């Protein structure tokens, strides 16, 4: 029993510490905002731990000591009273200093966070939907405006400005390795500046309960060197790849004559729905359905055949397709790199 308990405790601790590293952790910062916050977290936690230990010691001391009987109970001891008053006043004074100090620290940290994106050259509009993210790259040239979903490519080492809003309920954008979280509110625009120091993939998660599939509303920030990022943007601006095989051609026709076309957009085809993720380059993404499945032919088929099994309650309905029709549509989408 004891052995089991210690193994369980060991495993739990190991699992717990696991959560402190990796692509989604506030304690493993990969950008200036997250570093600032991580430093703040550790400093607050450390200082509060010290205060807690001191308070516990102060509590324990009188409990352990035997009360001293004064020799003459009726005689007032002005010296002892003064000492007590001084101890209490010192404690109150120290508390005030610590609280004011922490407030100042968080104030200056906030100023640092706010300054990160003041010279951001890139603005990205992130719109929350139940349960996926619409991502729109702003540009002064209208033909360079780009809409995609769930994956946010950014140039590494450069500040980026995110404009956050929502079309349905309140969501919250949180990529712990890069920054703190900020809400996406319908009818309101919030501004979040982020910067990734090094190239890498950082996972984010909706952090405000938004309905049945809140837990499956993930996002990915993919930081790349500037040249690679520019190349990615130019690729994404191209219309969808033309179907290469007969099967894929059949898939395109099916897509355009079935419910898919009512909700989804595929650039370069008549499909122009805006209520669901843009599929123009769907196969170039790493995941499906906001991080729920990894991108593969099998998972594409699984999702289209039964979105309500993969993500129950999701706003994509089950569409009645025969096996051949499903294969054709998957063959088509798989080619949309």
């Amino acid at each position, binding site marked *: 029993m004891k052995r089991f308990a210690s193994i369980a405790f060991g495993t739990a601790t190991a699992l717990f510490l696991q959560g402190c590293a990796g692509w989604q952790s506030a304690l493993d910062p990969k950008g200036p905002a997250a570093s600032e916050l991580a430093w703040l977290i550790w400093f607050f936690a450390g200082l509060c731990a010290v205060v807690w230990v001191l308070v516990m010691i102060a509590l324990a001391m009188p409990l352990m000591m035997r009360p001293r009987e004064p020799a003459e109970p009726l005689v007032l001891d002005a010296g002892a009273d003064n000492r007590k008053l001084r101890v209490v006043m010192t404690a109150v004074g120290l508390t005030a200093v610590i609280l004011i100090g922490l407030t100042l620290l968080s104030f200056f940290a906030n100023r640092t966070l706010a300054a990160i994106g003041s010279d951001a050259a890139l603005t990205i509009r992130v719109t929350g939907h139940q349960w996926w993210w619409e991502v729109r790259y702003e540009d002064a040239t209208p033909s360079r405006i780009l809409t995609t979903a769930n994956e946010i490519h950014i140039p590494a080492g450069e500040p980026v400005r995110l404009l956050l809003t929502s079309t*349905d*309920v309140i969501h919250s954008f949180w990529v712990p390795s890069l920054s703190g979280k900020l809400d996406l509110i*319908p*009818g309101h625009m919030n501004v979040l500046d982020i910067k990734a120091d090094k190239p890498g993939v950082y996972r984010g998660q909706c952090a405000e309960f938004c309905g049945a599939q809140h837990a499956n509303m993930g996002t990915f920030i993919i930081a790349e060197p500037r040249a690679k990022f520019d190349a990615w943007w130019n690729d994404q601006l191209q219309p969808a790849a033309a179907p290469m095989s007969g099967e894929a051609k059949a898939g395109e026709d099916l897509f355009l*004559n*079935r*419910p898919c*076309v*009512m*909700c989804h957009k595929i650039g370069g085809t008549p499909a122009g729905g805006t*209520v669901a993720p843009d599929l123009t380059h769907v196969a170039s993404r790493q995941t499906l359905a906001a991080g729920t499945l990894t991108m593969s032919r099998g998972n594409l088929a699984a999702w289209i055949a*039964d979105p*309500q*099994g993969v993500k*129950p*309650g*999701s*706003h994509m*309905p*089950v*569409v*009645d397709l025969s096996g051949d029709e499903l294969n054709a549509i998957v063959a088509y989408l798989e080619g949309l790199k």
Partner: protein
Amino acid sequence: MRPAVVMLLLAGLALAACQREERDTRPQSALGSGEQPTPVTTLEPGGQRPSPSDNKAASFEANAFHLSEGKRLFGWFNCSGCHANGGGGMGPALMDEKWIYGSSMESIHATIRDGRPNGMPSFRDMIPDDQIWELAAFVRSLSGNAPSAAAPSRDDDMMAHPSENRMPNAATLGKSP
């Protein structure tokens, strides 16, 4: 003994509140195909033909989840482009008591699925059958034909008309009983 029984009864009552409406998000072919012939007109030689009914009609009509899904899809599929928010535009008003093709779930389902000659497009292959039923249920709620306990309530955006669960029944509105 007695207090324990009372406590048990109270707990039972409290648990009853946990009952939640079932949300059927997968198509239920068991209920019916949605392919039954629906009369385009009620004018039949020799009197009115009994309207065929579909099991789905009954299960979608008073279900709060399906009604609210129908409301979302009404906007998503741009029904409002022709019918406005029910008040009518290029297409007829859907919140009044006048029905060109009948007010039953089955008739509205047939209208959306097959279209109607004077400009209502057919959505047969464009909307999955269950979603057509959801739209039909929602269209009925626009004229106060859905139970107020199930019809959608307050919108989050600007409201074009009172919420569906407060819509008066258009057929009896302004008429003394």
